[in-house]
């Protein structure tokens, strides 16, 4: 596809998404759109580090939770304006990321995986203990609660995240990140400061995750602090990225839509929770047989039907 066609298709989709709250007034449908957009941010931000830079973060929930909790406190408990609170959420997530990132990235391989997994678990346990009570929005806010501003905020941040990845994938930064994913020795030998760029990717990734957390803090009427750090936030993001197409721009977007739809569909026919097992099977199939995920499947299908030339979207 040419750039113009890309641009007009993307523009069309954005316009449609802006119109969504005017077309659909049912809460459940708007919530569905809201969640899909939130998942796009959550998974696309994971993709920056996991897909482009090749560093598997199994503690994504830590940064989502840190962002959500910080934003909630800044907004509700300290009474500062919402945009400031959401930005604060992003920063809080990045601070945690740097604390774990500095030591873990000094070592290659699995140390980062283990470190992030454990960090999320520590935060989950600590916050269930020190903040055991549910954090409920005050009545004055609940009375005036509307999904529409939450939806638009979620749309804004999702667009921001996708745009960030689009820019990264076409920039010098993206080249550096991908070189780390492919081979760290060769990246160093080509002049890439691997430690620094891993940290940078981690910072960008967690900042965007923190923003997603901030939106969740604005959206959720009541939650328990520990629940923000539940591993499911990590797992959903990882599943979406791989099933959609790891290391691509469209992967997390397609993956999020697919994930939310299939989850909804499965919950109609299967006992609760089984959808996770279905996604587990899908996930393994993708890792073993379809490393490009749905994006690759669509490309193959298009190639077969149109007989067009091979095209590499990077």
């Amino acid at each position: 596809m040419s750039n113009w066609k890309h641009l007009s298709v993307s523009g069309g989709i954005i316009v449609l998404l802006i119109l969504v709250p005017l077309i659909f007034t049912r809460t459940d449908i708007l919530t569905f759109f809201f969640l899909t957009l939130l998942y796009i941010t959550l998974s696309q931000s994971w993709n920056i580090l996991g897909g482009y830079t090749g560093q598997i973060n199994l503690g994504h929930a830590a940064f989502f939770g840190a962002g959500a909790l910080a934003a909630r406190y800044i907004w509700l408990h300290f009474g500062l304006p919402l945009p400031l609170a959401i930005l604060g959420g992003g920063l809080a997530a990045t601070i945690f990321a740097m604390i774990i990132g500095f030591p873990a990235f000094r070592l290659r391989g699995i140390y980062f995986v283990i470190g992030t997994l454990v960090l999320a678990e520590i935060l989950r346990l600590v916050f269930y203990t020190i903040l055991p009570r549910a954090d409920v929005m005050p009545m004055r806010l609940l009375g005036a609660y509307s999904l529409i501003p939450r939806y638009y905020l979620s749309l804004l941040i999702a667009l921001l995240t996708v745009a960030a990845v689009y820019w990264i994938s076409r920039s010098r930064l993206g080249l550096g990140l991908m070189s780390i994913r492919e081979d760290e020795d060769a990246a160093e030998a080509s002049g890439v400061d691997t430690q620094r760029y891993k940290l940078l990717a981690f910072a960008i990734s967690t900042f965007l995750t923190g923003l997603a957390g901030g939106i969740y803090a604005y959206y959720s009427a009541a939650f328990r602090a520990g629940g923000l750090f539940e591993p499911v936030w990590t797992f959903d993001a990882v599943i979406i990225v791989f099933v959609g197409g790891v290391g691509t721009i469209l992967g997390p977007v397609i993956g999020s839509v697919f994930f939310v739809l299939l989850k909804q569909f499965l919950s109609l026919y299967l006992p609760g929770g089984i959808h996770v097992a279905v996604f587990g099977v899908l996930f393994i199939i993708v890792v073993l047989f379809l490393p490009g995920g749905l994006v690759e499947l669509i490309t193959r299908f298009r190639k077969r039907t149109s007989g067009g030339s091979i095209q590499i979207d990077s």
Partner: protein
Amino acid sequence: MILEVKNLLKAFGGLVAIRDLNLAVNEGEIVGLIGPNGSGKTTLFNLISGVLKPDKGEIRFNEIDITGLKPHKVCQGGIARTFQLTKPFMQMTTLQNVMIGRTYGSEPVRSMRQAEGECERILEFVGLGGKRLSLVATFGLVDRKRVEIARALATKPRLLLLDETMAGLNPSEMEDALRLVKAIGDSGITLIVVEHVMKVILDISSRLMVLNYGEIIAEGTPQEVVRDEKVVEAYLGE
């Protein structure tokens, strides 16, 4: 003098890989480095390029001490290398591979468009002009080696370390590679070349060094070195 190595020592546990090694390379030379398997050639490359830190000694490049610098600093300073077992970026295009060298190496270019233009010329130079948008994972050994050399050239090195570029090539591919290495030398880049194929190394080197058990046992023009008794012994004595 572009490269000067003084009293370099590197041991792995009890095994001394590089033993009190001294060497000097002048600008514009093509230095051949030979020696039996395990004599320390790749270790020496790893020490110069910063992958390994020496236990003792000093490495000076352009009169500047670069001992113990990280590999990316060494590369940005103007020393590039290739790997014995090639390490191109597999899931990226040829052009992207080379772009990384151009945008991160020494004299890096920040503008992607400018870098792209320069990289296309480098790809033409190594003979990959027609494959700029192919994934490297689809390439055979010859093209992977070309990608790696192109990536190293794109970092704009003043000194290039080539580690067994000819290994695994058939005679006609070797001819091409030989021409390429000579052309690189002609463009003014200083080269240190590790190679097992004697015919090749004698042909391209302006000076030859022989490494055995981590020490340089002979040095001189190719003609002098092959007549040296210690060298004959090192190669045939075992």
